[in-house]
């Protein structure tokens, strides 16, 4: 996995459709991020072109002009701003794969769904939780076309006249910064797994599968 360092650019704010009152779109689910017809792939790559497919393209396959990622200055955004409960629904890791393949490396929202949140770290995406108020400020910066910079090591976001700190769990931070292979790490603890299995083979024997599903 690629190491995460810092990201700079214009963030793309996912706003609610009704523009008269400023608000972020909530409950963006993984079906929206990558609809099911694209889950038939057996690869991790190539999903970026289908990211947010049903919001990004109309029934004829033309771009929907009003969709944020179709607007010129946000086409190459690496940072996404959104409302509560981002990534809810299906556990499909195709969602972070599609975001990453499109180029999104940072997602900022007040809250994330649990499985999606985890999936991000496995793919080098940094999900940041910030208050609705701060996200509103960041959205205003984004709408004005100004850049922001996210520096993971310092746990800070900078803009022209704003400096925001964010929290991140230390192990998640390390995974991202080092680009670690967590399977490799766990395999180093094989002796722990061996001894757990040995002990429970006799302590909890009903969890060892004895029978077989014969054909």
């Amino acid at each position, binding site marked *: 996995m690629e190491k995460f360092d810092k990201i700079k650019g214009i963030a793309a704010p996912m706003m609610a459709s009704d523009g008269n009152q400023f608000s972020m779109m909530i409950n963006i689910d993984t079906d929206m991020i990558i609809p*099911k017809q694209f889950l038939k792939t057996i690869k991790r790559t190539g999903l970026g072109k289908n990211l947010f497919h049903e919001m990004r393209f109309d029934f004829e396959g033309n771009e929907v002009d009003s969709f944020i990622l179709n607007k010129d200055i946000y086409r190459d955004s690496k940072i996404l701003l959104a409302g*509560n409960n981002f990534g809810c629904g299906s556990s499909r890791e195709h969602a972070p794969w599609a975001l990453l393949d499109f180029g999104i490396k940072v997602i900022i929202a007040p809250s994330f769904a649990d499985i999606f949140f985890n999936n991000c770290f496995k793919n080098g995406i940094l999900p940041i939780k910030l208050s609705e108020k701060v996200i509103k400020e960041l959205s205003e910066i984004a709408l004005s076309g100004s850049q922001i910079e996210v520096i993971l090591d310092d746990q800070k976001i900078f803009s022209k006249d704003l400096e925001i700190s964010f929290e991140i769990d230390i192990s998640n931070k390390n995974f991202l910064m080092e680009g670690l292979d967590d399977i490799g790490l766990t395999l180093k603890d094989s002796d722990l797994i061996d001894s757990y299995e040995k002990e429970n083979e006799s302590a909890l024997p009903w969890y060892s599968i004895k029978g077989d599903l014969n054909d």
Partner: protein
Amino acid sequence: MTQAKTIYDKIWESHLVGNKDNYSLLYIDRHLVHEVTSPQAFEGLRLNNRSVRHPKKTLAVADHNVPTTDRTKEIEDEESRIQIEALENNCKDFGIKFIDMNDIRQGIVHIIGPEQGFTLPGSTIVCGDSHTSTHGAFGALAHGIGTSEVEHVLATQTLIQKKAKNFKVELKGKLTDSISAKDLALSVIGAIGTAGGTGYVIEYMGDAVESLSMEGRMTLCNLTIEGGARAGLIGPDQKTFEYLKDRPLAPKDKIWDNAIRYWETLPSDKDAFYDESIKIDINNLAPLVTWGTSPEDVIDINGNIPKPEDIEDEAKKNAIKRSLEYMGLEAGKPIKGTSIDKVFIGSCTNGRIEDLRAAASIVEDKTVSEKVNAIVVPGSGLVKAQAESEGLDKIFKDAGFEWREPGCSMCLAMNADKLQPNERCASTSNRNFEGRQGRGGRTHLVSPKMAAAAAIAGCLTDVRDFKN
């Protein structure tokens, strides 16, 4: 004195392999695999020259992509076929048991796990699928994982985890004939919201939960993920043990007896601590239906569609507006009487034998409305066979339902079963998201009886009006 513990605390502790700096390594007893979220995991193993640590602890089946029509022919959709073949080949290469599409035991992962006795109380169960929470009905710690984690479990039989908090959901009162586990689950999601359970494991208890059959408990736990919690749990009891006894993969003889003695110690201790709790009185519950595009958008079938202007929160207000527009509904109007085009009875939420019996009891001697296309997709081959032996297929077919082969089908519409733009469906599945059942399709989540009633009436209706 030892500290009082919840069932979640107990399962967590008994599966702890080790604690690292800031996370824990949890042992995984059972791993279910399906075709959509596994190919990249197997590819990862191959790339790194890794093997599967315990092939026998993993069970695989194709369910998401499979056609629900004639299966004697080759699958028409090439991508679907490739994905299913990839699963079969991966299982062969890594020594994992794969249940073939034409095997009577094939079905939706979360239905076949319990059927085969793969699901056991007190165990840890994962699957690359969010509705793995279903297995919590047996007092198992069961949750969905991503594909990278699928690979991690295949290679190490463990998962990197952080302990969640405990959330108690108490459901008190008596169930009636027209109120099912689906209504209970929807009422919980309506109460806590789709993010209300984030960071928690929910434990369901109370007399309403105890009185549920295992099928009903599975429905309840299945929908836990729609409330944001990864896992839902119900303490095992006599019903749990009776369901599992003599299932193919359940322990036998002396090990079974000892297992029961152990499983009886699993329910939460009386004074166990919960970080959060709610109590819901179900005595006055009416059949529920969703009006919007999030499972929390729940109303009583006799209720009115909400008005955005009644909502303070700007983000919620805008979300409601968007939902109403997508759903083609008018704020403030009654939901009852909303005309529908399709009915789907099935999915891991409501595709079990009891669900089919419930729906059939409404359909018997009636006819599906002319303008409605209604399908029943049993959750597994065994459910289908059981239903046929009871003559349920005949009841459905006589009324004008299509009787299909088992699979996920129109729950996520990856195969040919899907809604067309603007088509409206009464569905027993679990997600009413935009596009979930087909682009532009409009989903109303309901119980099996409510779906059956809607098929007959041609519109969303109160099943209680259908009493003979």
